[in-house]
């Protein structure tokens, strides 16, 4: 799969050019809008899709299944600290997900572990990771899915 750009939405700001780890997002010489110059080198990291402030970049599936109407689109809202995904399956199922943005600026928020207290044996044996649950800003403990909520078989 590879990225492509909706020309009506792109304003040629260059965020995708900056962020593409494969250096394949470039600016078109005729219309000064972004384009993927080497679609087969795209590894679908979605960096440019998320970075685009105008939601101008989408990811195209391969020809054998793309015409069947799936879609994976993302809306990144920095001011809210959220990243939302809308997944449209080929059978028409639609799923929406919202997650927190966990990106931190370079060189910041590096935990100074040497200055912290040594963890106890109990803490090491616990399923919680470093700084959890405080680091997740959750007062009520980690969210968990109760076993009785699961149904048998494959379901959507």
């Amino acid at each position, binding site marked *: 799969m590879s990225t492509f750009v909706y020309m*009506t*939405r792109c304003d040629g700001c*260059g965020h995708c050019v900056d962020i593409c780890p494969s250096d394949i997002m*470039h600016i078109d010489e005729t219309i000064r809008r972004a384009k993927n110059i080497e679609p087969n080198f795209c590894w679908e990291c979605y960096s440019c899709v998320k970075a685009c402030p105008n939601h101008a970049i989408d990811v195209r599936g391969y020809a054998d299944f793309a015409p069947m109407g799936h879609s994976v689109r993302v809306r990144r809202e*920095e001011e809210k*600290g959220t990243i*939302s995904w809308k997944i449209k399956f080929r059978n028409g199922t639609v799923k929406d997900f919202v997650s927190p943005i966990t990106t931190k600026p370079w060189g910041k928020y590096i935990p100074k572990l040497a200055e912290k207290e040594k963890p106890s044996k109990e803490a090491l044996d616990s399923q919680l990771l470093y700084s959890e649950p405080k680091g997740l800003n*959750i007062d009520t403990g980690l969210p968990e899915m109760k076993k009785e909520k699961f149904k048998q078989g494959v379901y959507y």
Partner: protein
Amino acid sequence: MFTTNPFSILAETVPPIALQSFVIVMVALVIIGTLVDIIHKKNVKYFFENAKKAKLSAIKTLSTGEKISVISKTIVSDIATTSELGAGKRRMAHLLGMYGTILFWIGSVIMIFCYSTPSSDTPNVWPIIWHVGAIMTVLGGSWFWFFLRVDVYSEAQPWYRIIKADLFVLALLASALFGLIWSFLQSLNLNNRWDDKLFLILFIISNIVLFGGVYWSKFAHMLYKPGAAIQKNLAEADGSRDNLPPPADAPKQYGLGIDREKAKHY
């Protein structure tokens, strides 16, 4: 210079009908260029087909009042203040160039069609609008050309590299700059010296390139972009959102949000 109508001085040697015909030909070139562009690129066809497809996934039918409200908001926010460019230098430069160009063109049309005889008494406001518009266009265009072109910044190209995408901005910049220089030289009363004629010819050529090059240049983005902005906002309002997820209702534990890191061009 700022209160002198440059076209009324020109009308002493060129009949006003020739000036007016030139403007009409330029408008016709824009219309023809845009139509050929539409036919060749099939972009309008794609645009309407896409809008029709998007309508199928709409979750709400918009009333006429709601549509008018969305379109009015789009005109105020997306079109009049180019909000899609965010807050920053690109938007400032674009607004300078956009409003400068509008003032420059309106000033030109009014002065050529209403006050282009040697005897006509042009109200001071029109030459001022024309000159201020030209200066704003030169400032906005130069700012963009020298400092903001993203291919120059993001792709480490030299500032003097000219590509096809520059045809519009350079022709616009040239027409405003040569117009200003021509008006300045005219105001010096050089008694038919060669230089004001030279800049008049350059002014005419840059206008022909600007309006005649619509098919090859980015000129038509002025016509397409407002339509695309209206379609985008209508899609947000009717819930189809071009398959994008809805704006998030962020739970408290997601934190206070982050600042978008500025693009760090080379």
